[in-house]
C-alpha cells in the first residue's frame, strides 16, 4: 500500500545527500519516511531525530504546509505525492570567521 512521497532536504543538510535537494521514497507515515531516509543517507538521521526517535527541538517538519506538531506527529499518515519539508533553525546573516 506504500506510496511514493518526497522529502525536501534543506541546504545545510545536503552534504548528507550528495547535494540532492529532494529524496523520493516509499512510506505510509512520516516516521517511516524519516527512518527510511536515515537508512539511505548515513549521518542524516541524527541531525533530524533525537536518540528517542523524536524530531529535534531545532528542526521543524512539515507535511505540505502543516507543522507535524499540529498533525499526528510521526504517526501522521501520508498519501502518495505528499511532500515533507525539513526546516532547521538557521542563524543567518554574517558568517563566523569572516571578520
Amino acid at each position, binding site marked *: 500500500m506504500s506510496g511514493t512521497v518526497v522529502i525536501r532536504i534543506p541546504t*545545510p543538510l545536503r552534504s548528507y545527500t550528495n547535494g540532492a535537494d529532494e529524496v523520493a521514497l516509499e512510506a505510509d507515515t512520516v516516521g517511516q519516511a524519516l527512518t527510511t531516509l536515515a537508512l539511505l543517507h548515513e549521518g542524516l538521521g541524527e541531525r533530524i531525530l533525537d536518540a528517542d526517535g523524536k524530531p529535534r*527541538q*531545532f528542526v*521543524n517538519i512539515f507535511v505540505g504546509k502543516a507543522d507535524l506538531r*499540529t498533525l499526528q506527529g510521526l504517526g501522521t499518515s501520508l498519501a502518495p505525492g505528499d511532500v515533507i519539508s525539513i526546516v532547521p533553525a538557521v542563524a*543567518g*546573516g*554574517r*558568517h563566523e570567521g569572516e571578520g
Partner: protein
Amino acid sequence: MKAKDRELAALRARIAEISPSEAQRLQQQGAALIDVREADEIAQGSPPGALRLGRGFLELRVEEAVPDFDQPVVLMCNGGTRSLFAADSLARMGYSTLFSMVGGFSRWKAEGLPFEQPSQLDSLARQRYARHLTIPEVGEEGQAKLMASKVLLIGAGGLGCPAAFYLAAAGVGTLGFVDDDVVDRSNLQRQILHSEAKLGMAKVRSARQTVEALNPTVKVDTYETRLSSANVEEIFAGYDVVVDGSDNFPTRYLVNDACVKLGIPNVHGSVYRFEGQASVFWPGYAKRRGPCYRCLYPEPPPAEFAPSCMEAGVLGVLPGVIGLLEAVETIKLLLGVGDPLVGRLLCYDALKAEFRELELQPNPDCPYCAEGRAFPGYIDYEQFCHGA
C-alpha cells in the same frame, strides 16, 4: 473662586467674545482668524484660511502673519479659553481689534461650519513621497504614519542593510541600528549600505552616513554595542517594529524574548546560500495568533550541528531578497494594511525560483508567549546556545 476663574472673568470683561458664525463672517470681511491649537489638534481639522500659528509661538510669529496692527483679529482654540489668553497677549502687543471665538473649534464643527484637514507633509515631502501619496493604502495619512514611526534593525549586515535602505527611502521617521562590528571587504558582496571607502569603519556609522545621504529627513539612532540582557530593553524602548537581521542564535533568542515581553512585532529573516526565509513573530497580533521564535525552535542546534564557516556562505543577492521582504512586512505593520506573515513562514529557493509558504502554530505551552504566563526572565543566552 480660583485664580484661573478670576483671571478668565477679567479677560471676558476686556475681550469681545463672538460665536463661530460671527467669526466666519468677520473672516470673510477681512479679519484674520488665528487658530492657536497644537499641531495634533489642528490635524483633526481647522477652518479654511485660518492662520495656524500655535499658542506657544504665537507672539513670535503673529507679526509676520498679521503685519497691520489695526486689522481685526479673531482668535480661536478648541473650547474658547486659550483664545482669551491669546487675545489678551496680542492686545498687549498692540493689536487694536481683538475677538475670542466662543466654544472654539468644537462649536465651529458642531455648528456645521466648513473645515479642512491641513496637510501634514511639507512640499519637499510631497515631492519625495509622491508615488506613495497616490496609493490608497498609503496616501497622506499613511505617509505621515511612516514618518512618525520608529524601526530598530538588529544588525547592519546582509539583511539589515537592504531593509534599512528601503525603509529610509520610504520615509520611516527613525531608524535605529544595533551592531558592534566594523566594515570588512568580505561584507561588500551583500551589505549595500557600506562601501570600499568605509573599510574598518563601525557599521552603524557607515549605515548612518548612507541612510542620511539617501534621505536626510530620517533620524538615525546608532547603538555600537552587542545586544545583551542588560541593554536590550533600554534599546528597544519606543520602537514600533524590530527587524531581526542578526547572525547568531544568542541574539535571535534574546530579540525574541524582549519582543514578546514588550509586545513589539519581530520581523524575522534568515538566509543560507541560495535559500531564505521570512516571517513575523508577533503573538500580540490582534487578528491571528501566531507563534514566537521559541514556539518554532524551543532550542538552538548544538555547536557540532551548526555548519562550519567554510560550509556556510550565501549568494549576495539572497539577503537582499529576504531583507526587502522584511522591509515590506515592516511597512505593512506600520501602516496596518494587508495580511502580515504572522503564523506564516515564507521560504524562497533561488535555484528553483520558487516561493513556498508553511503554516506556523503557536506552542500552547511556550514558556515565553503562552497565554496568561508571566515573563520567565532573560537567560544566559551564550550558555543556552552552547556558544554557537
